[in-house]
């Protein structure tokens, strides 16, 4: 089953890279809502009040599509991971913007240089993100909200490590490399984080 999904994604990505409109649409529709959630989970409540998540989603998708040519699908789940990393970067960017409070002229210029067709369909795709959310996510909407709230309350270091392992799917070794810890230490950190998350989740 997973193979099928993966094949599909690969297929769509390939099509999109070639400029296929509907493939692009589909990718956005399937992955858009997920990116939205990932962003929500990454941002704390404070941040969420300051940054519009939908904007961020658009931001992320735009960067992704722009960069699609550079993306190679190797292993299962690569696409989402890739999107997730983009989301992380965009988020950090936005934070800096928030603090700096200046506008990034270059970014705007880049926007304008988009090919119209991609933009049109892209906008349409983005419009569709909320209304045709994949049912798997729709049905769990409430619970996901609860999870998001719980993650909000989590200590930043716990939150970070949970996102890295659960969303990005990084191995403990990989996480360890990023954080400068041993993989065992990471694992223990994850168990503490999960346990804490459960406690909070129960009381949300």
């Amino acid at each position, binding site marked *: *089953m997973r193979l099928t999904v993966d094949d599909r994604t690969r297929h769509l990505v390939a099509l999109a890279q070639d400029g296929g409109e509907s493939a692009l649409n589909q990718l956005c529709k399937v992955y858009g809502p997920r990116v939205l*959630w990932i962003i929500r989970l990454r941002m704390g409540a404070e941040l969420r009040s300051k940054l519009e998540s939908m904007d961020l989603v658009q931001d992320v998708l735009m960067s992704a599509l722009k960069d699609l040519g550079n993306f190679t699908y190797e292993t299962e*789940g690569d696409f989402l991971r890739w999107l997730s990393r983009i989301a992380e970067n965009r988020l950090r960017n936005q934070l800096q913007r928030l603090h700096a409070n200046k506008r990034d002229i270059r970014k705007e210029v880049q926007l304008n240089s988009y090919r119209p067709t991609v933009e049109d369909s892209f906008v349409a795709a983005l419009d569709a993100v909320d209304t045709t959310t*994949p049912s*798997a996510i729709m049905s769990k909407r409430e*619970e996901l909200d609860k999870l998001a709230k719980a993650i909000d309350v989590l200590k930043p270091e716990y939150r970070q490590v949970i996102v890295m392992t659960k969303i990005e799917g990084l191995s403990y070794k990989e996480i360890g490399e990023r954080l400068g810890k041993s993989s065992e230490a990471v694992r223990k950190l994850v*168990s503490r984080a999960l*346990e804490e998350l459960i*406690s909070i989740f129960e009381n949300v």
Partner: protein
Amino acid sequence: MAGPISDNQEHSLRKAVRQFIDAQLQGQEPDIEEFVRQYPEFEDQIRQKVRNLQKIDTLFDSLVQVDEGDFEDTATGCDLVGRKIGHFEIREMIGRGGMGVVYLAHDTKLDRSVAVKSMPAELKSSATAQARFQREAKLLASLSHPNIAVIHEIVEEEESDYLVLEYIPGQTLAEQIAKGPLKLQEALTIALQIAEAVAAAHEHDVIHRDLKPGNIKITPDGRVKVLDFGLAKAVGGEPSEKPTTVTQPGRVMGTPAYMSPEQACGKPTDKRSDVWSFGCVLYEMLSGHPPFESETATEILARIIEREPDWNVLPQDTPNNIRVLLRRCLEKDPHRRLRDIGDAGIEINETLSSPPVTIPLRLRRMTLMIGATFIIVLIGAVLWLTFDNKAQPSSKEIRLVVLPFENLGSAENEYFAAGITDQITSHLAPLRGLSVLSPRTAAQYEKGKKNARQIGEELGVDYILGGTVQREQPSDQTSPVRVMPRLVRASEDRLVLAPIYHIYNEDLNELYQMQSDMAEQVAQVFGIALLEPERRALQSRPTENMEAYEYYLRGNEYFLRSILENDFRIALGMYEKAVKLDPAFALAHAQLSRTHMMMYWHIFDRSEERRAMAKQAVERAFQLNPNLPEAHLALGHYYYHGHLDYDRALEQFAIARKSQPNNSEVLEFVGYVQRRQGKFEEALGNIKRAFELDPLASRLAYQIALTFKLLRKYPEAKRYYDRAISLSPDWHIPYARKANLYLLAEGKTEKARAVLQEGLENTKSTENFEIVDWLVDIDAFDGNYQEALDRLSLKSKDIDNQYYFIPNALRYARIYRYMGNNQKAKEYYEQARDILKSKIDEDPNDARFHSALGIAYAGLGCKEDAIREGLLAEEMLPVRKEAMRGLWRVEELARIYVVVGEYDKAIDQLEDLLPRPGWMSIPYTST
């Protein structure tokens, strides 16, 4: 869930959970059971936390893992809007289902709205699938029924085929139900149309296979349209080609909640699967949610296959036949399921068009006949078993319980079933060698949740008699009724007798004849002769008038129920109607007499007239039937309750007992009389024996407790109070008396208070005045005067029972006296005195008033008046005359002495009381 845990424990719990998670992350796959064993004190919490962990994991998964369904969902989204398919203009998307997307379109040729459905992606790839689909679509097109959504045509475009369907405005049934369960009338009207639609399709061998509320639309003018017929098969393909199990994402047949068990197992489906789904839909309409629900699809499937739906959530007004219909539709074995959905339609139609069933008189007569006929066989069997094929009767008595007969048919049969049970029990009771448990006891064992052995042990019986009643042809009033009794030997769970009787709608006389014929035949079969007294007993019928008999039975129901005045009044009404209809109904007269006496005895109507009415009724009963045991019982009551003439009463009871040795009521009353005589030990024996015969009668447990209490055997008393409470947790008396017990036994109020609180919670506030009274007293004892006053102010009635009469004023007076507020106390004592004086004027012979007046005088400091009244009361009702009430007089006299300061005299009285069985005890006096 275990109670809240301390911080320390919280810490350990969390540490434990962390360990578990860590082990999991290491890939060790820890076993939760082992874990729970390690920390048994945290079992609930651990399980919950692990559950939540799994939930969280699932949530993350759903974010991260995309599945096929997602691609489907988003695939053909808004593609079509604005396009033209053939001569249809696609206007907007109106829905999405497992079958593809549905659009609202405009038929440009015929200028009407239609629905256009795009084909699911799979079909486009397979030629065979497409061909099959076309075939199904053609079949569907051939259906023409007002409740089936029509297929107009198929449009073939390059990239895909499209179905053009009738456009149905309005909501789906699912949307309607989401607002709340439907009213009965509405649900049935809708169900009828669904049934008709499905029936029409079945006629043409088209099976829906995916019937559910989401597929049923209701137009604004109330017409039902069933959608998506047969498409499920066309789209899904044969089971061998593509397994349609739910666990495969993508091509799923929608929610599994409406799947039949055979579908859930992946077996091929047929018309009966539609019947099942129909049942689910009807159930959901009535109750508001589907019969099989759970969080995950696999859980739902498991429930469909293994569990029965919860029948209790159906609304109260759901008629019996609809319940039966639902059961037949939701029968898991397709062979036993309702076969033809048309039948469902007919059943519903009848329910909608006919008024509520009133049982015709003929049927009522039949009930009695059935009962009587059957008894013969039973007696035969019993005697056979008793006699053991020898001439010697075995000395052991056989104990039998008659369980309510189960009604397997429509509503009217309910009456049969109940009638049979009553009849059999009342006819069997007089037989020698047989001890039959009373009907009230049996009513609690309806619907066989326990097996024979358990019932046998619990009730202490050797044999269980139950059975079923059903009409041969359920919808045909003239078809015979099939009665299938079953006699089971409890300890071995062995079926001893299981005859089948067919009862026809015959004339009364012919049925009597049949009855005696059968008696002879059965006697021959069992090789014994029915003993004369038994045969005569069979022949005698209490009354020829069945209506009168019905009233009599209903009167019994209320008479035995409780000691509340209202119940007796209703019973009176019933019996009076019975004797009006049949003035020769001796039994009813006897019962009438007893009811009058109950009114008299329990102070509801302590008038001469009442007593006279009782006398009259029982005399009439004797006139009609001098040997009637119940008449003797009634006469006994008259002597006892009416005149405290113990000897005569016992005499009568003894006569009654001769012909009904195992009648628990006789034993009970013998016990009560003995108590009043002061023969407490013997009384105890008799009441206990009565309890053995009627083990679920809480009043008997209570009486035993009371007797123990009088004997000052407090631990035993407590045991029986507890038993009474567990048998009838909503009866307030045992709680109050148990509280009193704690006061007697220990002199402390704490435990008593706890019991009273429990009582308050479990009983109705309109009935539990005695509990409140005790709480007032306890508050007063404990010095919580304000609470006592507050509670007292909630009461409006004075205390008025057979032992004492205490006006509220007197109680206020006492509390104020304890508080030291002499002014108020005096006011209230004066009030009490006036009330009591007027009561005495009305009824100078009621000793209770004099005692109470004595107390009032004592409170006012009128010493001589007080003592005079107290002594007078004692004279009127001395202990030797009436042990129980008399004792109260003595106690009250003692109180009087205390209040007026004649402590020595008070002590004398108490000393007099204490050695005897009675209400007083040493710890109690300290209060």
